[in-house]
């Protein structure tokens, strides 16, 4: 079981955390909502929660709860630019369908 960051994404996360002045890592989870059933949530983590799995990728700690991990196993998180917009992109091998905007997905 693993979740990884691309190097580009890791640099971004580190920049954001330095800017923010605090944080131990990135908390990734999957929530059941959205038009295709599931949606990603990406938050700064200020403390570790004992029940979570921790992965480290390019020096960044990724925190994932067990339930979310089932949907996220093998995911690579990238940082991408699309036109003027830029942000984090989930390359998740488990996803079978996404909604039109790609914000929610189903497995």
């Amino acid at each position, binding site marked *: 079981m693993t979740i990884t960051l691309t190097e580009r994404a890791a640099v971004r996360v580190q920049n954001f955390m330095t800017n923010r002045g605090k944080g131990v890592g990135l908390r990734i989870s999957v929530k059941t909502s959205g038009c295709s059933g599931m949606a990603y*949530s*990406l*938050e700064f983590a200020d403390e570790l929660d004992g029940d979570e799995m921790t992965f480290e990728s390019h020096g960044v700690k990724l925190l994932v709860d067990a339930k979310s991990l089932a949907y996220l196993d093998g995911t690579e998180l990238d940082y991408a630019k699309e*036109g*003027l917009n830029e942000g984090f992109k989930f390359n998740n091998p488990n996803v079978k369908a996404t909604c039109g905007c790609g914000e929610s997905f189903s497995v």
Partner: protein
Amino acid sequence: MLLQIAEPGRSTAPHQHRLAIGIDLGTTNSLAATVRSGETMVINDEQGRSLLPSVVRYLPSGKVDVGHDALAARSADPHNTIQSVKRFMGRAYDDLGDLADIPYRFVCSEGMLQIKTAADVRSPIEVSSEILKQLRERAEASLGGELTGAVITVPAYFDDAQRQATKDAARLAGINVLRLLAEPTAAAVAYGLDNGSEGVYVVYDLGGGTFDVSVLRLRQGVFEVLATNGDSALGGDDFDRAIYNWILQQAGLSGLPTVDLGNLLAEARRAKEALTELEQVSICCNLSQGLAVALTLTRAEFAAMTRELVARTLQPTRKALRDAGLTRDAVQGVVLVGGSTRMLPVRSAVADFFGKQPLTNLDPDKVVALGAAIQANALVGNQQDDSLLLLDVIPLSLGIETMGGLTEKIIPRNSTLPIARGQDFTTFKDGQTAMSIHVVQGERELVFDCRSLARFELRGIPAMVAGAARIRVTFQVDADGLLSVSAREMKTGVEASVEVKPAYGLGDEQISAMLQASMHHASDDMHRRALVEQQVEGQRLIEAVSAAVQQDGYLLELEERQLIQQRIAQLVDAMQGQYSEAVRHAVEALNGATQAFAAKRMDASISQAFTGRTVETLGV
């Protein structure tokens, strides 16, 4: 779909992102900023440019160019290329002074002025909305979604008409205004959060067209604006014009076609900007009639020709400090905002004035937008803690007119917003059933010298003797600085109110002029106020005595009656004069002369009440 990192517990459900931006709608340039993954950043266009020139060009085809394209066409198409439109927001044609330098075709109309363009007649609100629309589109492309709302900054000196015009422009551009924020306050937010420093700061904001100075206290993450002042008709444009006039003078030019004037003004601006880096700069410009300009401008010459302009910024700075009750030594740091603060004469003047180097670590062109973005982000609920509390102040006192044309201040100037304050008033005449409420803004003691904002009437006051009714007048100013006034008669509950959406076209320059006048005329005003107060008191007394004489005159001896009449005549005489003391003496004299009469009236009315009744029935 690209995701951003949210603060802990603040991530949103899909399709419910709260995208918020801060917009600095400037006289010369405008820009938008946002908070993305916890980082405050300016939103660039496709070419990577952050500043959008606040220039709008209307083409005959109906097409509208905004920003750099419009700016480029300024010289070629001056009538239809509108710049510095912020100066016209909420202003009437009559408010504008010398229009000789302005190439637009203004249309004389009721209320706010309009500009005739190739497309059609446009108001400053419509022109501003084109700029805002452009920024909205840029932001939505960049953030990948529809905006929840925006915080738009305005100069601290903007009056209600100008704030309303700004809001209207945003609405026209399809932007939900979360809040209007004073520019210096926004700058303080950007600096306060990024540096975390505490103490008293002065924000010195010299933009393209306006100058604002604010005294702020930063304490435990809370910003309190202690005082603001400024000059809403002073900015970098004036420095351009100083160089431009110097060029005309040096080259002996006059009566040039509009195209040349535009080119020379652009050249003047380029020279000004270059002098921040260079010791001297050469000014070369080919003019249309085969003429050419070739001059050299040094830093020293530039400093000399703009000394007066720089000095004009220090006067309001002194006043703001005085309003805040602080001396220069109490100021811990000075924040420079606005592109014009890059000019070396400005920097050194500020450093000399405060005896310390000003802070410049954030880009002075962007700092206001960055602060607005932080505020917008907090307002839509993306901020982890809501500790950020902003306090704005009202620029001029608000009050109502009382008898004799005096101003009664209800909310004093520099009160923090939002604020609500009430005061009780009463009737002046017996049986008075209506009261006219005249809302005024200004520092002077007489209504005549203040600015009229609105008038309304409270009707249906039950008939009572003068002074018995209690009418509570409540002033409420919301976070955007917009005012509503209500009046309520406390016994019956009858109420009347007005939302002050003042007629467009009340000048903002007037505000600073009014402030200065109030300083100059302070002792004068005190005198006049005292006189008017005594006159009102005299009038009230004459009416009361006359009514009493008419009703119970039979109680008076002839001499007594003559004395009262004589004293009334003396009082009327004194009231025509200029001396409040004389009026006061005459009032006392009349009071003295009527004392015996008052006692007799009292006796008469008591014996009348007791006639034919025994002690038992009185229930004593």
